[in-house]
């Protein structure tokens, strides 16, 4: 089972407006996969389809060899949406506990995982505070911690580092790389920041619902004969149109 995620000929439109056309992706186990593109390119729709929250009009999506949507597979996917999606009346710990019990973690496991993910995102001291009192960055970090709570094989993160300060951003990316290298997790990250794209193993550039080009960052740089990743994106866009 080498291919963790396989997206084949997926089309999707909202009403008459096409959002995704003919998308094909293959993501092997243990890859850090970057989906790059401007806002409104269809990145979020694509990742939502992989999680099974959006239905494709045509084509198919397989995760870990099973066709999506599939309820039991959701145990293996940690999803972090663009919005923080937290219960602000509750404390950070209560939020984590709630999601941990949705994944049916045992009491002991819950404790261990909560301590682990809280430490990871630097929130251990703030766990007893209500989320309403959190700063924007803290909410983002808690949201990330929730995506990691059940120790999933696959992480799908929709713009995970928006609103996070550079120092923390660096440590979060370090953690992504560690999760990938040491725990062989498959990670999909959407972003519109190019310096994050360079850190991915494999990058797909999305614009207007199409994948313009894909490859490892160095392959792409070589292909478009430039050292600057921003330029790769611009050139790929020009080539299409």
């Amino acid at each position: 089972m080498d291919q963790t995620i396989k997206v084949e000929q997926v089309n999707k439109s909202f009403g008459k407006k096409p959002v995704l056309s003919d998308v094909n992706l293959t993501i092997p186990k243990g890859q850090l996969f970057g989906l790059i593109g401007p806002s409104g390119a269809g990145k979020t729709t694509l990742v939502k389809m992989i999680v099974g929250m959006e239905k494709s009009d045509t084509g198919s999506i397989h995760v870990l060899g099973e066709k999506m949507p599939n309820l039991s597979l959701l145990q293996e996917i940690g999803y972090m949406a663009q919005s923080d999606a937290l219960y602000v009346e509750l404390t950070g710990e209560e939020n984590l506990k709630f999601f941990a019990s949705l994944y049916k973690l045992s009491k002991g496991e819950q404790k261990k995982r909560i301590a682990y993910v809280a430490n990871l995102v630097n929130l251990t001291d703030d766990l007893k505070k209500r989320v309403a009192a959190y700063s924007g960055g803290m909410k983002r970090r808690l949201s990330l911690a929730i995506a990691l709570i059940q120790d999933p094989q696959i992480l799908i993160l929709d713009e995970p580092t928006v609103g996070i300060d550079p120092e923390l951003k660096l440590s979060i990316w370090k953690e992504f790389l560690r999760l990938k290298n040491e725990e062989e997790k498959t990670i999909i990250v959407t972003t519109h920041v190019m310096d994050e794209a360079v850190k991915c193993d494999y990058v797909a550039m999305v614009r207007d619902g199409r994948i313009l080009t894909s490859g490892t960052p160095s392959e792409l740089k070589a292909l478009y004969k430039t050292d600057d990743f921003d330029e790769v994106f611009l050139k790929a866009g020009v080539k299409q149109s």
Partner: protein
Amino acid sequence: MRMTALIKRICQQMLRDKRTLALMFVAPLLILTLMYFLFNGNSVTPKLGVVGGDSSLVNAFKDAEIKVKEYEKVTKNTVVDDDLNGLLQLENGQMKLTLQNDDPSSAKGLQAKVNQTVSALAQSKLIQHNPALAGMIPKKIETNYIYGNKDTVFFDVLSPILVGFFVFFFVFIISGIGLLRERTTGTLERLLSTPIRRGEIVTAYLAGYGIFALIQTVIVVFYSITVLDIVLVGSIWNVLLINLLTALVALSLGILLSTFAASEFQMMQFIPIAVIPQVFFAGIFPLEGMANWLQMIAKVFPMYYTGDALKGVMYRGAGFSDISGDLIALVIFAAIFVVLNIFSLKKYRTL
């Protein structure tokens, strides 16, 4: 276990939100108390101006609890100027009653009282002239009441309906906005990215808010019966059962309608459409007098059944078998809304 987690979370959230709790538990009591005093106020003694009446007539009016003011002469404006409820003019054996009619129901009351007093006086005068007639006229009509007694006021009939309505209204608002917030903040989406089933979410929501609805129902019912002394002829368990089913209907309807609202403000816009009409058909206004098509419409409003059942148990002392039809109707409403809820979540995830 997933459901328990969800129910626990709903309870935690509610307990943190002191204001919403107060709205749910205290506001109905405040309104009920206010209504109680409003409807139990003593009626004002009507003021009647009399022109050309003799002392026996004036005394008869006074006995009938009408404040009499005698006039020698009146103008067109006397009624308004002296703020009289009515003016009775006697001329050449003819009687003319002018009513101010600023409040139709009290004007009608005064009119009836005046008629009664005048005819009673005429009767007694007739008997004085001809005592033989006395045996032909009944002395007094004895009145018996099937439901209630001579002290029954409108509030006694109204209060059972109000109790049911408050349960409906507050549960509707709080559960609807609860799920709406979950939609707008994106937590519902996140919830649906976990392996929880749609049915589990709806059930947990019903149970979570149902706990608070139950507490509210118990508080409202006990307060009305013990503190406000509202008549309760039938069993209190039946009252609780009816209200609980009403809460369930309100809960599932609130959650369902929140699907069609994009914000709290839009949720509020459902009040005039989905909540206020319920009052009209709950039995405050007698349904028999309504046009046939209106009576048909009434039957699609859950409050129609709640009102009917509550009035039956609390005022008329109806038993379980008498209200079973209403209860079944409420269960059907709740079932329909619950199923529709599970379907509406399909928008987010097909499983």
